[in-house]
């Protein structure tokens, strides 16, 4: 298992390299002039030309790519933002935790509530509880995050004065964004859990467990749920992997200066170093999340763990 993990970690490196080259190339060929954004719309054309030269934007593609790969992979330096001239790693170190907090807590809330709703729906299939849960799921999937966010602000901040409406500064500032971010996830998790549970509940071993007289809760939570969790975990993993890219709407609505907004702002401003850094970061998060998911699979499903161990033994024996 350890060997498997190390191998997966090593595989991330060439993937990140490929992503870096790809994003660099894409940004290189994307039209748009960062010099004009830096100098403003009243800058003369001569001033813009001089600025482009100073930024190295007139250098050949290979030279620019080489410089970029050397700085990122050999020096670990993402450079400075074209617009703010602040170290990108410093900005990300400040912004990423905010995005991760929203993403992780939204995910946790959506998993807890979504899985419970899914279980209830599965147990009471075609009953009132099932229809109610699925109605909540339908509403959650249909409702746009920005609309929900604003409605939550109007209710809890403007009318009830319970929570702040925007910004950062205290844990209370994260409550509404997490609520808004979790709603769609609750819906997805509920539907996925219901579907998985229905499949598992029909299994012979569940029938056996019930026939043996086990308490109903034990049948569901000890026998059925672990087997139904794999697709749910996959969904959770995908959600977590998109924590940076998927947070832009919430960050914009709630005025949270997170990594998502940082990236979108950089795309609009053609702040190439920031865009590259954010994409590489997303690739790393994705890779690590998938690895984490595989590890969790192994713990949840002993068959998968045995398969990993068997594969490792075969390869070791093959040497």
């Amino acid at each position: 298992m350890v060997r498997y993990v190390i191998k997966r970690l090593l595989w991330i490196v060439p993937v990140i390299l490929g992503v870096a080259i790809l994003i660099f190339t894409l940004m290189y060929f994307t039209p748009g002039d960062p010099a004009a954004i830096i100098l403003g719309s009243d800058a003369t054309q001569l001033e813009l030309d001089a600025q482009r030269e100073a930024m190295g934007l007139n250098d050949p593609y290979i030279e620019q790519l080489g410089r970029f790969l050397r700085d990122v992979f050999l020096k670990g330096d993402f450079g400075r933002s074209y617009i703010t001239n602040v170290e990108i790693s410093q900005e990300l170190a400040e912004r990423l935790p905010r995005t991760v907090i929203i993403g992780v807590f939204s995910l946790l809330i959506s998993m807890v509530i979504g899985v419970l709703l899914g279980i209830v729906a599965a147990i009471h299939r075609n009953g009132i509880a099932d229809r109610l849960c699925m109605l909540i799921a339908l509403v959650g999937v249909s409702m746009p995050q920005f609309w929900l966010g604003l409605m939550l602000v109007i209710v809890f901040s403007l009318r009830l004065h319970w929570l702040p409406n925007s910004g950062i500064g205290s844990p209370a500032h994260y409550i509404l964004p997490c609520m808004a971010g979790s709603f769609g996830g609750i819906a997805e998790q509920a539907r996925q859990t219901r579907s998985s549970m229905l499949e598992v509940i029909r299994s012979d071993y569940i029938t056996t467990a019930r026939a043996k007289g086990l308490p109903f809760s034990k049948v569901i939570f000890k026998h059925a749920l672990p087997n139904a969790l794999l697709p749910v975990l996959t969904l959770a993993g995908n959600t977590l992997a998109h924590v940076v890219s998927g947070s832009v709407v919430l960050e914009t609505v709630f005025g949270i200066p997170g990594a998502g907004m940082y990236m979108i702002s950089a795309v609009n401003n053609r702040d190439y170093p920031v865009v590259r850094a954010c994409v590489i970061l997303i690739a790393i998060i994705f890779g690590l999340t998938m690895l984490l998911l595989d590890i969790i699979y192994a713990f949840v499903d002993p068959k998968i763990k045995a398969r990993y161990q068997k594969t490792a033994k075969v390869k070791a024996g093959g040497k």
Partner: protein
Amino acid sequence: MKRALSLILALCMLAAFAGCSTSGTNAPADAPASQPADLEQIDGKTELETSTGAEATGSGEQSLVVVALTADPGTLDPFSSNSLGRLYSLQGMYETIGAYYNGKFNLVMAKELTPVEDDTLEYPAYDVTFWDCIYDSNGNHFTVDDYLWCMEQYREIGKNTTVKAVEKFEQTGDWTVRIYMNTDSLGKFEDFIRQTWLVTRKSYEASEDGMATTPVGTGAYKITEYKSGATIRYTARDDYWQKDDSVKSAVQLANCNDYEIRIIKESNQIVIGLEAGEIDYASNLGYENSKRFMDGGSAAAGHYVDVFQNPGTEMLYLNCSAGSVFDNNPKLRQCVMHAIDIDSIINGVYSGYAMKAHDIACAINLADYPTQLDNEPYFEYDPELAASLLKETGYEPGQLTLRLMTKQSDAFEMMYCQAIQQNLRDIGIEVEILGYENALYEQYKTNPNEWDIITDTRGEYNYFAFAWTKLDTNNYSSDVKSECFVDDDHLYELVATAASAKTTSEEAILAVRDYNNEMAYARGLCAPYRFDVINSNKIAVLTRGELLRFLPGATTYVWN
């Protein structure tokens, strides 16, 4: 059953969307057909009234003043180019030689500023005498050496283009510097003076990030907390260097101990913050977002709305490059100009809250604006004339398609482009609207193959003649020439004459206008009004500084 339920939910969602205002750029909703009742037409100008809410009912105790800003300053270092976000964020903390507001120059770090009387000089020069008691918030003394060092930094870093108007600096005394300009274009010196923030070298070099997040200035306030992209907290300095209140300019006052700028990009959140009392001032909210705070609105209590002319004119330029449809075709250009119904744009797009331009730009308290222009016809809307001009150019209705390029980030620009599209369609010209994000727009602006008509905005300016900047060929390379790409030396001579401090005059300004009216290369459209919402429970009398930016330190509060 499920399908019916889904359909009902989707319809409910649509209905809810229709009730929400749009975000980000204050896009207008349905507009009233007539002028707003609180505007009066006086002598061709529109007098703006301020709507007032309830009387200030604050307790008299000082509290934090919160200002909402949609534009993120990005960096707080002194030497980067000055966006709107930076100008709002850096004033009060950094200082300059002087600030320009109320129609005149107000000295700040300079004790004296005098033009040099020397006929041998080709371009203007100025003598600046600094105060000898300037200290920054770290206690470092600001000297002429620091000033010269700052200017070196500006040149080396190169992001602040105003310094390019200066030829050289010369120290002429312990506290005096002579500034030699390399141009006599109107407004260049003022722009340079008011946009070059000054810091001490010692404090700058002690900063780990070039003051990007840890600025140290000589201003009446210091930044005590900065969360990038979120908040900037300012606290009044007890040790501010200027002790003589009689010589302080407005930017040097500190009527509130603490104020905070909150960066909120979502305009709906700003409105909610104002209603909830969390925000005390918000600028440029637009009519739809502001009307609830006006008299009779649902949130009028404790608020008032300032409605006034914003320094900034929407403009239209025609691509007259060699081989374009407008090249050597003044009749077609006149046709387009006369086809535009600016009154319906003002009423429809801006709900009546915009001032019609009578020249390339609207004059907002500019001393050199020839006021008689307000009564003279300017590209009057005449669809019949436009249609006949189109016929004379040889185009049949429907035969010609023009590309109208604009910034898609500005909802108002997109809307008036649609109005222009309809106006031109009415006379038989098809228009394709090309809305681009800012970066692409700026790139395509100087490419004559990308557009036929372009919208642009002329922002801050101190002299009316400066508004012709985009037709000043000195600002462009030899192959681009100007915003219109036109090869017209006579135009450029006229613009240069009007823009030069030595040769400018009312006649020169009128000459440019008259020539452009004849050749129809460009036109001004309108200057939208600005709606600022103010918390009257805290703010008694709002004070504005340069280009009508809110000055928290100079404002009078209920506790003053």
